[in-house]
């Protein structure tokens, strides 16, 4: 069995999502290689060695400078051919979802998405996917190789193993249609602290905050914990907080070690985006809020009283 892990390079580094999937691939066993596609990414690619990759395939080409999926399908097709990988694993992101699906069509290779675990049964790879609003857990498989899989973001943590990887350059040829879409503008999001995909701690706010100013409770508590701030769809729709922080079915899926929900009822729309979190703490004044059904620690009370004091206590501990 040989597994290829798609590693995303951003600003000269490999993202945590890809390195987490790499750690899982190493744990599954067999030959594990990374693949990094981009322009000027060889240095970043070499860093995968310290996280368990023996080999890193690199397609370094100007055609891959912009974060667009279609040229990446061409490049990945070449790498899969060169490496003979039986599994190709992707950390889920806006970009990789399109790359994985394009590759699935190109190679007629099966793709399972939103997986929260992988295991081997003999020679078979088995994927685990929460389905139907996470009310059922489905085990999925593949009938042919290569098997393609998108892993739910934040599912696996990187593991620093030490070591170095052999960087292998692969040349790719690009289809004409793959280069028709072009990036005309890019606006980097300015944010302080970790992004919600990478944060170990998330403090999220919902309608119970009472208004946009209520997010100061989330921001102060998040700062005390070194975490990031997230929001529900309802408050994003209401314009209280930016869409980039939205967690849920139509926002982002996160799984931090600790998720603190302030004034969030826990509608299914939100639940599917965060229930993979390690520990969920919920503060809500409605004792019947659905979030108490799946919170590890539920506190019925007034968050405007509890959150500031909690922030003070946590600051005092540091």
């Amino acid at each position: 069995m040989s597994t290829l892990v798609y590693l995303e390079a951003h600003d000269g580094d490999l993202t945590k999502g890809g390195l987490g999937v790499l750690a899982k691939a190493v744990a599954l066993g067999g030959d594990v290689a990374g693949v990094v596609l981009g322009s000027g990414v060889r240095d970043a690619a070499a860093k995968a060695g310290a996280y368990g990759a023996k080999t890193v395939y690199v397609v370094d080409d100007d055609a891959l400078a912009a974060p667009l999926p279609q040229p990446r399908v061409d490049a990945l097709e070449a790498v899969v051919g060169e490496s003979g990988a039986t599994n190709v694993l992707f950390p889920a992101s806006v970009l990789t979802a399109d790359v994985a699906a394009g590759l699935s069509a190109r190679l007629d290779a099966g793709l399972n998405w939103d997986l929260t675990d992988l295991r081997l049964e003999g020679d078979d790879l088995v994927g685990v996917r929460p389905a139907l609003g996470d009310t059922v857990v489905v085990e999925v498989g593949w009938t042919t190789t290569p098997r393609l899989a998108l892993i739910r973001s934040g599912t696996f943590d990187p593991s620093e193993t030490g070591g170095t990887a052999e960087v292998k350059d692969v040349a790719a040829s690009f289809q004409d249609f793959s280069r028709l879409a072009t990036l005309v503008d890019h606006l980097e999001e300015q944010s302080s602290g970790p992004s919600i995909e990478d944060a170990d701690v998330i403090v999220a706010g919902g309608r119970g905050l009472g208004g946009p100013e209520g997010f100061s409770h989330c921001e102060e508590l998040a700062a005390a914990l070194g975490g990031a701030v997230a929001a529900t769809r309802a408050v994003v729709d209401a314009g209280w907080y930016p869409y980039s922080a939205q967690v849920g079915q139509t926002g982002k899926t996160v799984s931090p070690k600790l998720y603190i929900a302030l004034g969030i009822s826990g509608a299914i729309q939100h639940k599917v985006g965060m229930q993979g979190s390690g520990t969920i703490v919920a503060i809500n004044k409605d004792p019947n809020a659905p979030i108490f059904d799946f919170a590890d620690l539920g506190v019925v009370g007034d968050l405007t009283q509890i959150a500031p004091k909690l922030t003070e206590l946590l600051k005092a501990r540091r």
Partner: protein
Amino acid sequence: MRIAVCVKQVPDAAVHKRLDPGTGRLDRAGESALNPTDVNAVEEALRLKEAQEGEVVVVSLGPEKAMESLRKALAMGADRAILVSDPAAAGSDLVATSYALAKALEREEADLVLFGQQSSDADGAVLWAAVADRLRRPMVSQVAELTLEGGKVTGKRQTEFGYDVIAAPLPAVVAVSDAINEPRYPSLKGIMGAKSKPQEVISLADVGAEAERVGEPGSRTTVRSSAPPPAKSGQVKLEDDGSAPEKIVEYLAEKRLV
């Protein structure tokens, strides 16, 4: 200008969704609806049509009863509906579905193919990329703002790192985010008029799709089993009596989270 909108019939949001234990497939027996985020794609197609003339055709793959849901798109203002319905297509995964859908779209020769954000039943948000590869067309996904000008689409989308603006010449494939618009409700006149709009139910053979490339034979993934999610254990719930902040800190410290 012809715009094809790919839509799907899904179980209604109010229906308790379940998997058929025998097949591992979704039980589609109950009330159905047009997939909610596909409605945003229909709306966007109608806005583009209103701005520059043209035809909007909704295209779907599904059982014959899916036409009921396509009629909602017609009631909103789409001009006609094509439903590829074939027992041989049941159980198609991404590989098989994208193949059959691409065949149906080739027949339509649309300048622009639109998709919604995500199917509410399979949670998939990837079909457009597979279809675009099969059609060999440029593709932009997760588009929250779309403009069409001079034979070119330009879409603004959000990623993990910020905002990207991506342009592509027609013919192209675009998947829209549900943040792109607020869909209209069909008017009574629209609902009445929908009945007389062209509604075609066609087979896989009609679109030139080979039977062995769809349904189970054409699929590359399987559902092995399904089970309820593991129950949470050790949940604690308390009422704040003024000591909640201390208790939360204690709880977090015990779990080594602070």
